[in-house]
Protein backbone atom coordinates (compact mmCIF):
# COMPACT_ATOMS: atom_id res chain seq x y z
CA UNK A 1 0.00 0.00 0.00
CA UNK A 2 1.28 3.43 -0.93
CA UNK A 3 2.34 5.36 2.17
CA UNK A 4 0.37 8.55 2.75
CA UNK A 5 2.43 11.74 2.79
CA UNK A 6 1.64 14.09 5.62
CA UNK A 7 1.95 17.30 3.60
CA UNK A 8 2.06 17.68 -0.17
CA UNK A 9 5.13 19.31 -1.69
CA UNK A 10 2.93 22.13 -3.01
CA UNK A 11 2.06 23.28 0.52
CA UNK A 12 5.12 25.57 1.06
CA UNK A 13 4.39 27.28 -2.27
CA UNK A 14 0.73 27.63 -1.26
CA UNK A 15 1.69 29.17 2.11
CA UNK A 16 4.14 31.55 0.36
CA UNK A 17 1.31 32.66 -1.95
CA UNK A 18 -1.01 33.26 1.03
CA UNK A 19 1.68 35.32 2.83
CA UNK A 20 2.28 37.34 -0.36
CA UNK A 21 -1.44 38.04 -0.79
CA UNK A 22 -1.88 38.97 2.89
CA UNK A 23 1.11 41.34 2.75
CA UNK A 24 -0.40 43.13 -0.26
CA UNK A 25 -3.70 43.99 1.42
CA UNK A 26 -4.91 47.55 1.84
CA UNK A 27 -7.26 48.99 4.45
CA UNK A 28 -10.77 49.08 3.02
CA UNK A 29 -13.15 51.63 4.54
CA UNK A 30 -16.76 50.79 5.36
CA UNK A 31 -18.09 52.84 2.44
CA UNK A 32 -15.87 50.82 0.06
CA UNK A 33 -17.36 47.48 1.13
CA UNK A 34 -20.48 47.38 -1.06
CA UNK A 35 -19.08 44.52 -3.19
CA UNK A 36 -17.67 42.67 -0.19
CA UNK A 37 -21.06 42.89 1.55
CA UNK A 38 -22.83 41.18 -1.35
CA UNK A 39 -24.56 37.99 -0.15
CA UNK A 40 -22.64 35.86 -2.61
CA UNK A 41 -19.26 37.17 -1.40
CA UNK A 42 -19.73 35.59 2.05
CA UNK A 43 -16.73 33.47 3.08
CA UNK A 44 -18.91 30.49 3.88
CA UNK A 45 -20.85 27.79 2.10
CA UNK A 46 -24.27 28.81 0.80
CA UNK A 47 -27.32 27.72 2.79
CA UNK A 48 -28.54 25.76 -0.23
CA UNK A 49 -25.32 23.67 -0.02
CA UNK A 50 -26.26 22.29 3.39
CA UNK A 51 -27.42 18.85 2.22
CA UNK A 52 -24.60 18.62 -0.34
CA UNK A 53 -22.04 19.04 2.44
CA UNK A 54 -23.90 16.47 4.50
CA UNK A 55 -23.83 13.74 1.81
CA UNK A 56 -20.16 14.48 1.07
CA UNK A 57 -19.38 13.95 4.77
CA UNK A 58 -21.01 10.49 4.50
CA UNK A 59 -19.58 9.47 1.12
CA UNK A 60 -16.00 10.71 1.60
CA UNK A 61 -13.33 10.06 4.21
CA UNK A 62 -12.42 13.72 4.70
CA UNK A 63 -14.52 16.38 6.40
CA UNK A 64 -14.19 19.72 8.15
CA UNK A 65 -12.58 23.13 7.47
CA UNK A 66 -15.67 24.23 5.53
CA UNK A 67 -17.97 25.44 8.28
CA UNK A 68 -19.87 22.15 8.33
CA UNK A 69 -19.61 19.16 10.63
CA UNK A 70 -16.14 17.96 11.50
CA UNK A 71 -17.16 14.56 12.85
CA UNK A 72 -19.79 13.37 15.22
CA UNK A 73 -23.48 14.04 15.29
CA UNK A 74 -24.28 11.38 12.69
CA UNK A 75 -23.51 7.79 11.76
CA UNK A 76 -20.93 8.99 9.25
CA UNK A 77 -17.15 8.87 9.50
Amino acid at each position, binding site marked *: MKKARCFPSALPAFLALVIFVLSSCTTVKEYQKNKLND*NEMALAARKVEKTEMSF*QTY*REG*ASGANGGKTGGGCGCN
Partner: protein
Amino acid sequence: MKKICLSVVGLFLSFVALFGQTEKDTSTYKPRKLTFEEANLVSSYYRQDGNNSAVTGGIGTENLTDYSNTVDLKFVKWGRKDIKHSFHLEVGMDHYTSASSDKINPYTISSPSHADTRIYPSLSWMAENNAKGTTVGAGLSFSNEFDYRSIGANVLFAQKTANRNGEFSARLQAYLDNLKLIYPIELRSGVIPTTREEERGDDYATASRNSFSGSFSYSQIINPSLQLALIADVVYQQGYLGLPFHRIYFTDGNVAIENLPDTRLKIPLGFRANYFVGDKLILRSFYRFYHDDWGLTAHTAQFETSMKLSPFFSLTPFYRYYKQNSVNYFAPYKVHSPSETYYTSNYDLSAFNSHFYGAGFRLTPATGVFHVQRISALELRYGHYNRTTGLNSDIVSLNLQFK
Protein backbone atom coordinates in the same frame (compact mmCIF):
# COMPACT_ATOMS: atom_id res chain seq x y z
CA MET B 1 -43.73 11.47 3.50
CA LYS B 2 -46.01 14.01 1.81
CA LYS B 3 -47.69 14.64 5.18
CA ILE B 4 -44.32 15.21 6.87
CA CYS B 5 -43.24 17.70 4.18
CA LEU B 6 -46.53 19.61 4.36
CA SER B 7 -46.37 19.69 8.17
CA VAL B 8 -42.83 21.13 8.07
CA VAL B 9 -43.81 23.83 5.56
CA GLY B 10 -47.00 24.63 7.51
CA LEU B 11 -45.16 24.94 10.81
CA PHE B 12 -42.51 27.09 9.18
CA LEU B 13 -45.02 29.50 7.63
CA SER B 14 -46.82 29.78 10.99
CA PHE B 15 -43.57 30.86 12.65
CA VAL B 16 -42.88 33.41 9.94
CA ALA B 17 -46.42 34.81 10.21
CA LEU B 18 -46.25 34.90 14.02
CA PHE B 19 -42.94 36.70 14.37
CA GLY B 20 -42.86 38.69 11.15
CA GLN B 21 -45.79 41.02 11.69
CA THR B 22 -44.07 44.31 10.98
CA GLU B 23 -41.43 45.42 8.49
CA LYS B 24 -38.59 47.56 9.74
CA ASP B 25 -35.57 49.20 8.16
CA THR B 26 -32.88 47.10 9.86
CA SER B 27 -30.08 49.45 8.77
CA THR B 28 -31.06 52.07 11.35
CA TYR B 29 -33.61 50.46 13.66
CA LYS B 30 -32.16 48.66 16.68
CA PRO B 31 -34.90 46.70 18.45
CA ARG B 32 -34.57 46.30 22.22
CA LYS B 33 -37.13 43.52 22.17
CA LEU B 34 -36.58 40.14 20.57
CA THR B 35 -37.42 40.69 16.88
CA PHE B 36 -37.72 38.30 13.96
CA GLU B 37 -35.00 38.98 11.39
CA GLU B 38 -34.80 36.13 8.90
CA ALA B 39 -35.95 32.58 8.22
CA ASN B 40 -34.77 29.98 5.77
CA LEU B 41 -36.34 26.81 4.48
CA VAL B 42 -33.91 24.42 2.81
CA SER B 43 -35.37 21.33 1.14
CA SER B 44 -33.40 18.68 -0.73
CA TYR B 45 -33.90 15.45 -2.56
CA TYR B 46 -30.88 13.16 -2.88
CA ARG B 47 -30.53 9.81 -4.63
CA GLN B 48 -27.50 7.60 -5.10
CA ASP B 49 -26.65 4.27 -6.68
CA GLY B 50 -23.56 2.12 -6.70
CA ASN B 51 -22.45 -1.45 -6.20
CA ASN B 52 -20.08 -1.46 -3.23
CA SER B 53 -22.26 -1.46 -0.13
CA ALA B 54 -20.38 -1.84 3.15
CA VAL B 55 -23.40 -3.68 4.63
CA THR B 56 -22.73 -6.59 2.28
CA GLY B 57 -18.94 -6.50 2.60
CA GLY B 58 -18.09 -4.21 -0.33
CA ILE B 59 -20.44 -5.74 -2.89
CA GLY B 60 -24.14 -5.13 -3.46
CA THR B 61 -26.45 -2.21 -4.03
CA GLU B 62 -25.84 1.23 -2.52
CA ASN B 63 -29.22 2.53 -3.68
CA LEU B 64 -30.39 5.25 -1.30
CA THR B 65 -32.77 8.21 -1.33
CA ASP B 66 -33.03 11.03 1.18
CA TYR B 67 -35.59 13.82 1.59
CA SER B 68 -34.31 16.60 3.80
CA ASN B 69 -36.06 19.66 5.21
CA THR B 70 -34.42 22.25 7.43
CA VAL B 71 -36.03 25.34 8.89
CA ASP B 72 -33.99 28.01 10.62
CA LEU B 73 -35.22 31.14 12.32
CA LYS B 74 -33.09 34.10 13.36
CA PHE B 75 -34.11 36.60 16.03
CA VAL B 76 -32.25 39.73 17.05
CA LYS B 77 -32.24 41.89 20.13
CA TRP B 78 -30.03 44.88 20.99
CA GLY B 79 -28.80 44.95 24.55
CA ARG B 80 -26.94 47.42 26.72
CA LYS B 81 -23.70 48.98 25.36
CA ASP B 82 -24.97 48.48 21.81
CA ILE B 83 -24.42 44.74 21.91
CA LYS B 84 -26.31 42.80 19.24
CA HIS B 85 -27.71 39.47 20.44
CA SER B 86 -28.67 36.94 17.74
CA PHE B 87 -30.61 33.75 18.41
CA HIS B 88 -30.81 30.92 15.87
CA LEU B 89 -33.32 28.13 16.14
CA GLU B 90 -33.01 25.33 13.61
CA VAL B 91 -35.00 22.14 13.13
CA GLY B 92 -34.10 19.58 10.51
CA MET B 93 -35.72 16.34 9.42
CA ASP B 94 -34.37 13.73 7.01
CA HIS B 95 -36.31 10.77 5.75
CA TYR B 96 -34.26 8.15 3.93
CA THR B 97 -34.66 4.77 2.31
CA SER B 98 -31.64 2.51 1.97
CA ALA B 99 -31.69 -0.71 -0.03
CA SER B 100 -28.49 -2.02 1.60
CA SER B 101 -29.89 -1.56 5.14
CA ASP B 102 -32.45 -4.23 4.26
CA LYS B 103 -29.55 -6.67 4.11
CA ILE B 104 -28.80 -6.29 7.83
CA ASN B 105 -31.70 -8.61 8.49
CA PRO B 106 -33.15 -9.94 5.20
CA TYR B 107 -35.98 -11.67 7.12
CA THR B 108 -37.58 -8.28 7.79
CA ILE B 109 -37.46 -6.96 4.24
CA SER B 110 -40.08 -4.28 3.90
CA SER B 111 -40.46 -3.58 0.22
CA PRO B 112 -39.05 -1.54 -1.39
CA SER B 113 -36.36 -0.95 1.22
CA HIS B 114 -35.54 -0.05 4.77
CA ALA B 115 -36.39 3.52 5.88
CA ASP B 116 -35.79 5.81 8.82
CA THR B 117 -36.26 9.42 9.89
CA ARG B 118 -33.67 11.62 11.56
CA ILE B 119 -34.68 14.75 13.50
CA TYR B 120 -32.07 17.32 14.50
CA PRO B 121 -32.96 20.55 16.32
CA SER B 122 -30.33 23.09 17.40
CA LEU B 123 -30.23 26.41 19.21
CA SER B 124 -27.45 29.00 19.28
CA TRP B 125 -26.79 32.47 20.61
CA MET B 126 -24.24 35.11 19.59
CA ALA B 127 -23.42 38.52 21.05
CA GLU B 128 -21.58 41.04 18.88
CA ASN B 129 -19.91 44.02 20.48
CA ASN B 130 -19.38 46.44 17.64
CA ALA B 131 -17.30 48.88 19.67
CA LYS B 132 -14.77 46.24 20.67
CA GLY B 133 -15.07 44.13 17.52
CA THR B 134 -15.66 40.97 19.55
CA THR B 135 -18.24 38.21 19.23
CA VAL B 136 -19.01 35.48 21.72
CA GLY B 137 -21.49 32.68 21.32
CA ALA B 138 -22.66 29.25 22.35
CA GLY B 139 -24.91 26.55 20.97
CA LEU B 140 -26.57 23.21 21.65
CA SER B 141 -27.63 20.54 19.19
CA PHE B 142 -29.44 17.23 19.24
CA SER B 143 -29.93 14.52 16.65
CA ASN B 144 -31.98 11.36 16.85
CA GLU B 145 -32.73 8.42 14.58
CA PHE B 146 -33.59 4.81 15.39
CA ASP B 147 -30.03 3.58 15.93
CA TYR B 148 -28.13 6.82 16.54
CA ARG B 149 -28.45 9.67 19.05
CA SER B 150 -26.19 12.69 19.42
CA ILE B 151 -25.91 15.63 21.80
CA GLY B 152 -23.64 18.50 20.80
CA ALA B 153 -22.42 21.74 22.36
CA ASN B 154 -20.15 24.52 21.17
CA VAL B 155 -18.68 27.85 22.23
CA LEU B 156 -17.35 30.58 19.95
CA PHE B 157 -15.09 33.62 20.25
CA ALA B 158 -14.18 36.05 17.47
CA GLN B 159 -12.10 39.23 17.40
CA LYS B 160 -11.90 41.73 14.56
CA THR B 161 -8.66 43.59 13.81
CA ALA B 162 -8.38 47.30 14.67
CA ASN B 163 -9.12 48.40 11.09
CA ARG B 164 -12.08 45.92 10.88
CA ASN B 165 -10.57 44.29 7.78
CA GLY B 166 -9.61 41.03 9.42
CA GLU B 167 -11.19 38.67 11.93
CA PHE B 168 -9.88 35.75 13.94
CA SER B 169 -12.36 33.22 15.28
CA ALA B 170 -12.15 30.09 17.41
CA ARG B 171 -14.89 27.54 18.00
CA LEU B 172 -14.76 24.56 20.33
CA GLN B 173 -17.26 21.75 19.76
CA ALA B 174 -18.13 18.47 21.42
CA TYR B 175 -20.50 15.76 20.20
CA LEU B 176 -21.46 12.97 22.56
CA ASP B 177 -22.99 10.21 20.45
CA ASN B 178 -24.61 6.91 21.26
CA LEU B 179 -25.34 4.14 18.78
CA LYS B 180 -27.27 0.89 18.96
CA LEU B 181 -25.21 -2.18 18.11
CA ILE B 182 -27.38 -3.69 15.39
CA TYR B 183 -25.34 -6.57 14.01
CA PRO B 184 -25.94 -8.46 10.76
CA ILE B 185 -28.49 -11.18 11.38
CA GLU B 186 -26.10 -14.11 10.98
CA LEU B 187 -23.84 -12.70 13.71
CA ARG B 188 -26.57 -12.34 16.34
CA SER B 189 -27.45 -14.85 19.03
CA GLY B 190 -30.88 -15.58 20.57
CA VAL B 191 -34.30 -15.16 18.96
CA ILE B 192 -34.14 -13.78 15.40
CA PRO B 193 -36.72 -11.03 14.72
CA THR B 194 -38.79 -11.74 11.62
CA THR B 195 -40.77 -8.51 11.31
CA ARG B 196 -39.77 -4.85 11.34
CA GLU B 197 -41.82 -4.34 14.53
CA GLU B 198 -39.89 -7.10 16.30
CA GLU B 199 -36.61 -5.71 14.95
CA ARG B 200 -37.41 -2.23 16.30
CA GLY B 201 -38.65 -3.59 19.61
CA ASP B 202 -35.40 -5.45 20.31
CA ASP B 203 -33.16 -4.35 23.18
CA TYR B 204 -29.80 -3.60 21.61
CA ALA B 205 -26.54 -3.05 23.40
CA THR B 206 -25.15 0.44 22.84
CA ALA B 207 -21.75 2.02 22.31
CA SER B 208 -20.53 5.60 22.55
CA ARG B 209 -18.64 7.83 20.14
CA ASN B 210 -17.30 11.18 21.31
CA SER B 211 -15.93 13.89 19.02
CA PHE B 212 -14.07 17.00 20.18
CA SER B 213 -12.94 19.68 17.79
CA GLY B 214 -11.31 23.07 17.69
CA SER B 215 -11.96 25.20 14.62
CA PHE B 216 -9.80 28.25 14.03
CA SER B 217 -10.14 30.70 11.18
CA TYR B 218 -8.74 34.02 10.04
CA SER B 219 -10.50 36.08 7.38
CA GLN B 220 -8.97 39.10 5.68
CA ILE B 221 -10.16 41.75 3.26
CA ILE B 222 -7.43 42.25 0.65
CA ASN B 223 -9.02 45.05 -1.37
CA PRO B 224 -12.58 46.27 -2.15
CA SER B 225 -13.13 43.23 -4.42
CA LEU B 226 -11.22 40.39 -2.79
CA GLN B 227 -11.41 38.63 0.56
CA LEU B 228 -10.07 35.33 1.81
CA ALA B 229 -10.15 33.03 4.81
CA LEU B 230 -7.81 30.41 6.26
CA ILE B 231 -9.43 27.67 8.32
CA ALA B 232 -7.73 25.02 10.47
CA ASP B 233 -9.62 22.31 12.38
CA VAL B 234 -8.30 19.75 14.82
CA VAL B 235 -10.71 16.89 15.49
CA TYR B 236 -10.27 14.06 17.96
CA GLN B 237 -12.72 11.15 18.03
CA GLN B 238 -12.87 8.29 20.46
CA GLY B 239 -15.16 5.33 20.99
CA TYR B 240 -16.89 3.04 18.51
CA LEU B 241 -15.86 4.57 15.16
CA GLY B 242 -17.07 1.87 12.77
CA LEU B 243 -20.65 0.77 12.18
CA PRO B 244 -21.85 -2.56 13.62
CA PHE B 245 -23.71 -3.69 10.47
CA HIS B 246 -20.77 -3.29 8.06
CA ARG B 247 -19.76 -6.84 7.11
CA ILE B 248 -16.30 -8.14 6.25
CA TYR B 249 -15.73 -11.30 4.22
CA PHE B 250 -12.26 -12.72 4.84
CA THR B 251 -10.13 -14.64 2.38
CA ASP B 252 -11.22 -17.89 4.07
CA GLY B 253 -14.92 -17.07 3.48
CA ASN B 254 -15.73 -16.29 7.13
CA VAL B 255 -17.85 -13.24 7.91
CA ALA B 256 -17.32 -10.62 10.66
CA ILE B 257 -18.10 -6.95 11.22
CA GLU B 258 -15.65 -4.17 10.43
CA ASN B 259 -13.17 -3.35 13.15
CA LEU B 260 -11.54 0.08 13.26
CA PRO B 261 -9.30 1.79 15.85
CA ASP B 262 -11.15 3.47 18.71
CA THR B 263 -9.45 6.84 18.24
CA ARG B 264 -9.00 9.08 15.22
CA LEU B 265 -7.21 12.41 14.88
CA LYS B 266 -8.17 14.52 11.87
CA ILE B 267 -6.53 17.70 10.62
CA PRO B 268 -8.34 19.54 7.82
CA LEU B 269 -6.87 22.85 6.58
CA GLY B 270 -9.04 25.04 4.36
CA PHE B 271 -8.67 28.16 2.25
CA ARG B 272 -11.43 30.28 0.73
CA ALA B 273 -11.06 33.24 -1.64
CA ASN B 274 -13.92 35.23 -3.17
CA TYR B 275 -13.32 37.81 -5.89
CA PHE B 276 -15.77 40.27 -7.41
CA VAL B 277 -14.70 40.76 -11.05
CA GLY B 278 -16.11 43.97 -12.56
CA ASP B 279 -19.75 44.50 -11.61
CA LYS B 280 -21.41 41.26 -12.69
CA LEU B 281 -19.18 38.31 -11.91
CA ILE B 282 -18.17 36.73 -8.61
CA LEU B 283 -15.57 33.95 -8.42
CA ARG B 284 -15.82 31.74 -5.34
CA SER B 285 -13.09 29.21 -4.59
CA PHE B 286 -12.34 26.69 -1.86
CA TYR B 287 -9.41 24.34 -1.29
CA ARG B 288 -8.97 21.84 1.56
CA PHE B 289 -6.08 19.65 2.53
CA TYR B 290 -6.98 16.83 4.93
CA HIS B 291 -4.93 14.26 6.80
CA ASP B 292 -5.76 11.82 9.61
CA ASP B 293 -3.95 9.17 11.62
CA TRP B 294 -5.79 6.31 9.84
CA GLY B 295 -3.56 7.15 6.86
CA LEU B 296 -6.15 9.05 4.84
CA THR B 297 -4.95 12.11 2.92
CA ALA B 298 -7.38 14.06 0.75
CA HIS B 299 -7.54 17.18 -1.41
CA THR B 300 -10.70 19.10 -2.25
CA ALA B 301 -10.93 21.98 -4.74
CA GLN B 302 -14.18 23.78 -5.54
CA PHE B 303 -14.85 26.63 -7.94
CA GLU B 304 -18.08 28.49 -8.45
CA THR B 305 -19.02 31.53 -10.44
CA SER B 306 -21.96 33.75 -9.76
CA MET B 307 -23.04 35.59 -12.89
CA LYS B 308 -25.34 38.51 -12.10
CA LEU B 309 -27.48 38.58 -15.22
CA SER B 310 -29.61 41.30 -13.64
CA PRO B 311 -29.64 42.99 -10.20
CA PHE B 312 -32.17 40.34 -9.09
CA PHE B 313 -31.07 37.19 -10.88
CA SER B 314 -27.79 35.30 -10.74
CA LEU B 315 -26.66 32.04 -12.29
CA THR B 316 -24.21 29.86 -10.35
CA PRO B 317 -22.45 27.00 -12.17
CA PHE B 318 -19.97 25.07 -9.98
CA TYR B 319 -17.41 22.26 -10.08
CA ARG B 320 -15.80 20.33 -7.23
CA TYR B 321 -12.91 17.88 -7.46
CA TYR B 322 -12.05 15.52 -4.60
CA LYS B 323 -9.29 12.94 -4.27
CA GLN B 324 -8.38 10.63 -1.38
CA ASN B 325 -6.15 7.63 -0.77
CA SER B 326 -7.50 4.73 1.27
CA VAL B 327 -7.24 4.33 5.02
CA ASN B 328 -4.67 1.77 6.16
CA TYR B 329 -7.41 -0.71 7.06
CA PHE B 330 -9.39 -0.90 3.82
CA ALA B 331 -9.53 -3.89 1.46
CA PRO B 332 -12.29 -5.06 -0.92
CA TYR B 333 -14.57 -8.10 -0.60
CA LYS B 334 -12.73 -11.30 0.48
CA VAL B 335 -9.29 -9.66 0.49
CA HIS B 336 -8.81 -9.13 4.24
CA SER B 337 -6.95 -11.81 6.13
CA PRO B 338 -8.43 -13.07 9.45
CA SER B 339 -5.06 -12.37 11.09
CA GLU B 340 -5.39 -8.57 10.61
CA THR B 341 -6.27 -6.45 13.66
CA TYR B 342 -8.28 -3.74 11.87
CA TYR B 343 -10.35 -4.18 8.72
CA THR B 344 -13.12 -2.55 6.72
CA SER B 345 -14.63 -2.94 3.25
CA ASN B 346 -16.37 0.44 3.37
CA TYR B 347 -15.66 2.06 -0.01
CA ASP B 348 -16.18 5.54 1.51
CA LEU B 349 -12.73 4.92 3.04
CA SER B 350 -11.14 3.49 -0.13
CA ALA B 351 -8.93 5.33 -2.65
CA PHE B 352 -10.96 7.29 -5.22
CA ASN B 353 -11.44 10.56 -7.06
CA SER B 354 -14.80 12.25 -7.39
CA HIS B 355 -16.32 14.98 -9.51
CA PHE B 356 -19.31 17.04 -8.46
CA TYR B 357 -20.75 19.59 -10.88
CA GLY B 358 -23.95 21.39 -11.57
CA ALA B 359 -25.59 24.80 -11.52
CA GLY B 360 -28.09 26.87 -9.65
CA PHE B 361 -29.84 30.20 -9.79
CA ARG B 362 -30.76 32.81 -7.23
CA LEU B 363 -33.75 35.15 -7.43
CA THR B 364 -33.97 38.25 -5.25
CA PRO B 365 -36.67 40.46 -6.82
CA ALA B 366 -37.34 43.80 -5.14
CA THR B 367 -41.06 43.03 -5.00
CA GLY B 368 -40.47 39.61 -3.43
CA VAL B 369 -40.36 36.16 -5.03
CA PHE B 370 -43.63 35.48 -6.92
CA HIS B 371 -44.58 39.04 -5.82
CA VAL B 372 -44.82 37.87 -2.21
CA GLN B 373 -42.98 40.61 -0.35
CA ARG B 374 -42.05 38.40 2.57
CA ILE B 375 -40.19 35.83 0.42
CA SER B 376 -36.97 37.75 -0.16
CA ALA B 377 -34.92 35.14 -2.04
CA LEU B 378 -35.23 31.83 -3.82
CA GLU B 379 -32.29 29.63 -4.71
CA LEU B 380 -32.52 26.36 -6.63
CA ARG B 381 -29.51 24.14 -7.29
CA TYR B 382 -28.81 20.81 -8.96
CA GLY B 383 -25.63 18.75 -8.74
CA HIS B 384 -24.41 15.44 -10.15
CA TYR B 385 -21.73 13.47 -8.30
CA ASN B 386 -19.67 10.57 -9.57
CA ARG B 387 -16.93 8.61 -7.90
CA THR B 388 -14.30 6.44 -9.58
CA THR B 389 -15.61 3.49 -7.52
CA GLY B 390 -18.78 3.60 -9.66
CA LEU B 391 -21.04 5.37 -7.17
CA ASN B 392 -23.06 8.21 -8.65
CA SER B 393 -25.68 10.50 -7.19
CA ASP B 394 -27.90 13.49 -7.91
CA ILE B 395 -29.13 16.19 -5.58
CA VAL B 396 -31.67 19.00 -5.96
CA SER B 397 -31.87 21.67 -3.27
CA LEU B 398 -34.16 24.62 -2.72
CA ASN B 399 -33.62 27.53 -0.34
CA LEU B 400 -36.43 29.99 0.38
CA GLN B 401 -35.49 33.01 2.46
CA PHE B 402 -38.11 34.95 4.40
CA LYS B 403 -37.69 38.41 5.94
